[in-house]
């Protein structure tokens, strides 16, 4: 299936790779189908979340576990139901990056991860109400090396 993207031009994706976002993302409630593009190096924690329906929107996302050693998340029952975890499938957590001109000032939203059930091909952006994670978590602190 061919889709048009702003940053990769026209690309061919497998329909099996499409992930449903039944509630969209915050600020983009009507965009409900995305693909995660890895692009060459398979093991990079940096990924690209691309809308399938249009060239817009797209996001740079990172594997949350690459930013903190142990990403502690407890999800409400309603969220687990939407993510169809009763049918199995391990959940993976990704965080959305804001990248200003100087990449060293970039932040990720650790408080509102995108939770993906790859097996069920369904995902949700969840605001972790009871967590101390920051909405603007700096990835590169001075002198501190990323723990990935």
């Amino acid at each position: 299936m061919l889709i048009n993207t702003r940053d990769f031009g026209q690309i061919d994706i497998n329909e099996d790779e499409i992930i449903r976002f039944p509630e969209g993302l915050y600020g983009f409630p009507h965009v409900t189908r995305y693909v995660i593009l890895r692009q060459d190096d398979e093991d990079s924690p940096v990924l690209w979340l691309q809308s399938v329906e249009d060239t817009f929107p797209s996001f740079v996302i990172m594997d949350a576990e690459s930013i903190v050693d142990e990403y502690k998340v407890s999800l409400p029952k309603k969220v687990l139901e939407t993510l169809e975890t009763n049918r199995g499938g391990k959940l993976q957590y990704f965080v959305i990056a804001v990248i200003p001109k100087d990449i060293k000032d970039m932040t990720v939203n650790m408080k509102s991860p995108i939770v993906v059930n790859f097996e069920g091909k369904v995902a949700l952006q969840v605001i972790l109400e009871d967590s101390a994670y920051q909405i603007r978590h700096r990835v590169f602190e001075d002198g501190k090396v990323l723990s990935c």
Partner: protein
Amino acid sequence: MLIITRKPGDAFIINENIEVTILDVQNDKVRVGINAPRDVQILRKELYETEKTNMEAVQSINFSKFKELKNEIKNRKND
């Protein structure tokens, strides 16, 4: 910042048309009731901030920054 101490059942008024009532306090949670005109949008701050950062995220990225970030992380990993 204006700081007001209130007890459950007490309220305060903003701009003559918004009434905020403290309903109850339990452990580290406070329940608040708000009466406001329909056109006043009320959002949990983290929801508002998440929407805002999502918008910013979309506008802040492009292919070259994606590449740059991948390289930056690869280099740090190899250090």
